């Protein structure tokens, strides 16, 4: 037994010695530790939209340059002026005796003050916003008539995304000044922020109940916001429709965006959300309801 024990110990010792010589400790340590680079990407990084400028070339359609906007503005403005008057509509029903309708019921002398007061009303959010935000230039508050170009120009003086913590990223087209590219800075609204905004507007929106053909109607609403989240002036309906359902749907959309203000959106990304387009499309609701 003593001899066998000795041989066993000797052989084990020899193997151990060989292992220590053949596999030095440094090699054992380094082999499995290979660093795998992992980037954490937020949904916002994936769904970036760019900060805009008002003078970007292809901005004309959406920024409401006069030559682009005129037809739509004219279409929208006209019915509003008509409805503001106490007019005796052509479909106003007479009584059984068919007494003549009093077309003279429209009182021009009453309409004008009303319209003026309405202007005051719509201008109010702009005034409030101007008071709240020192950055806002005064002339805007004095304005009564809504002039999208003017306001856009004034808003543009606010530094875009000045305190954006994100590093400057190389632009796709660095040499060319395009919309979505402002001061070489790219900022984005995250999916969460956009969802929150959408949910808030959905909560304010009571679409009309619909009717035959109403499920085809989409109202495109253009709105501009102050930095405090209040509306600048009156939202513009950027499309049109001849159906009475369209008018009802457009009114419901305007009601929703008025009711929802002020919007709580990240101030750092004001350049992104100061100008918004909302497409109100109730077709899914009509189908399911």
């Amino acid at each position, binding site marked *: 037994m003593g001899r066998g024990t000795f041989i066993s110990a000797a052989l084990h010792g020899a193997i151990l010695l060989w292992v220590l010589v053949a596999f030095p400790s440094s090699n054992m340590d380094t082999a499995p530790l290979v660093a795998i680079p992992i980037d954490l990407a937020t949904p916002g990084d994936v*769904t970036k*939209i*760019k900060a*805009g*400028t008002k003078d*970007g*070339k292809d*901005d004309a359609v*959406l920024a409401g340059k006069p030559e682009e906007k005129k037809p739509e503005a004219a279409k929208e403005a006209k019915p*509003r002026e008509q*409805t503001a008057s*106490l007019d*005796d*509509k052509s479909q*106003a*029903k007479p*009584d*059984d*005796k068919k*007494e003549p309708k*009093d077309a003279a*019921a429209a009182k021009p002398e009453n309409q004008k003050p*009303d319209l003026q*007061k*309405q202007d005051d*009303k719509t201008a109010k959010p702009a005034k409030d916003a101007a008071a709240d935000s020192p950055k806002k230039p005064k002339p805007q508050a004095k304005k009564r008539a809504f002039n999208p170009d003017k306001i856009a120009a004034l808003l543009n003086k606010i530094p875009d995304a000045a305190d954006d913590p994100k590093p400057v990223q190389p632009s796709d087209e660095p040499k060319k000044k395009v*919309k*979505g*590219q402002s001061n070489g800075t790219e900022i984005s*609204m995250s999916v969460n922020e956009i*969802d929150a*905004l959408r*949910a808030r507007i*959905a909560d304010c*929106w*009571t679409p*009309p*109940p619909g*009717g*035959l053909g109403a499920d085809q109607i989409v109202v495109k609403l*253009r709105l501009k916001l102050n930095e405090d989240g209040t509306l600048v002036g*009156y939202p513009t309906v950027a499309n049109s429709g001849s*159906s*009475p359902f*369209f*008018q*009802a*749907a457009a*009114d419901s959309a*305007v009601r*929703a965006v*008025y*009711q929802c203000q002020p919007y709580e959106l990240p101030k750092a990304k004001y350049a992104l*959300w100061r100008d*918004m*387009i*909302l*497409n109100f499309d109730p077709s*899914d*609701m009509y189908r399911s309801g």
Partner: protein
Amino acid sequence: MLALIALALVAGSPQAKAVVELNITQGKIQPLPIAIPDFTGDGSIDPQTARAISAVVAADLASSGLFNPIDQAAFIEKVTNFDGVPRFDDWQVVNAQALVVGRIGASDEKLKAEFRLWDVFSGKQLAGEQFFARAKDARRVGHIIADAIYERITGEKGYFDTRIVFVDESGPKDKRTKRLAIMDQDGFNVRLLTTGQNLVLTPRFSPSTQDITYMSFEGETPKVYLLNIETGQKEIVGAFPGMTFAPRFSPDGQRIVMSLEREGNADLFAMDLRSRRTFQLTNSNAIDTGPCYSPDGRHIVFESDRDGSQQIYVMNADGSDQHRISQGNGSYSTPVWSPRGDLIAFTKRLGGEFLIGVMKPDGSGERILTEGFHNEGPTWAPNGRVLMFFRESPGAAGGPKLYTIDLTGYNERQVATPAFGSDPAWSPLIN
């Protein structure tokens, strides 16, 4: 209904756009909160009359299920100046989205009514009208204003300035007196048109709303009659040897389509009211009845038991291309084509119950709106959104009552009538 994620960041053009663009595909389905303060009088009229008219407006809008008139106790601003711009902040606080102000006066013994509909949040006037009416038509003024508001907010024609013709039933169940009656759609101004000596059934309005056609048992066999509701003048439609029943006007009011029974077999006939010529439309060995034109006058829906049980069929107005559209279990009867053409309402008998439902003209999309012991005889409001029908309650003291239900199936309301009421027929909008 949860909001669906439908992100629509601007991505259309090769160059990114300058604004956030979102698709809003979900909103809240709820009645629109509307403030209707008492209408003011202009001094020439009893303020109570003005208040009564605004109450009619509020009741009409509430009955539609699409508006929620706000309790007046919550109001902050007291509207005294009809021509002034309301203090919208005060109305926003009470959660009103729309505001109706009205002024009622008298002018040359006529009622002068004015109203304005304001959007509380945008401060925009959505509608404003002025009109005159006979003093006795004060309630009708309210209905007309309610129609104007309904149309402006929903984009769809209203249905409040309409009437209902129905069968007024009084007396014990085994010995009912049935008289033809007419009333406003809200159950007011009930007027009896027949004396009750003869049994009357299935009254129907002409498009002009001045004539009705109905079936009456005067003599040995029931006959279809035509009655002018203003003059009371009455005549038999067609001189047929057998019994005639289930009459209904064509959409242009020029024809009446009805059933004519001979030797236990009923077929459909149309009669031109001017020439009095008749045209046979069906010729089956079954009972074809309950015909109703489509709003364009090109098709007729009717019921027939030619396949064994009562089912719904559609054919061209000349009787060609007869085909069955009802496919579900149970039997179907009293089909009525919606005035907007997209649906057919019916009574369905299934498992001992009578249900009211709608289906598309091709038979698809069947939907039951209300069910119970015995519901029957649907009739459409002129805008095709609401149905009226009668519901029979069981028991010795039970009887039929009139109800309305909208297409969602949720807004069901009873229409108050002086006694029991059955077989309602909704008029078109009164001109």
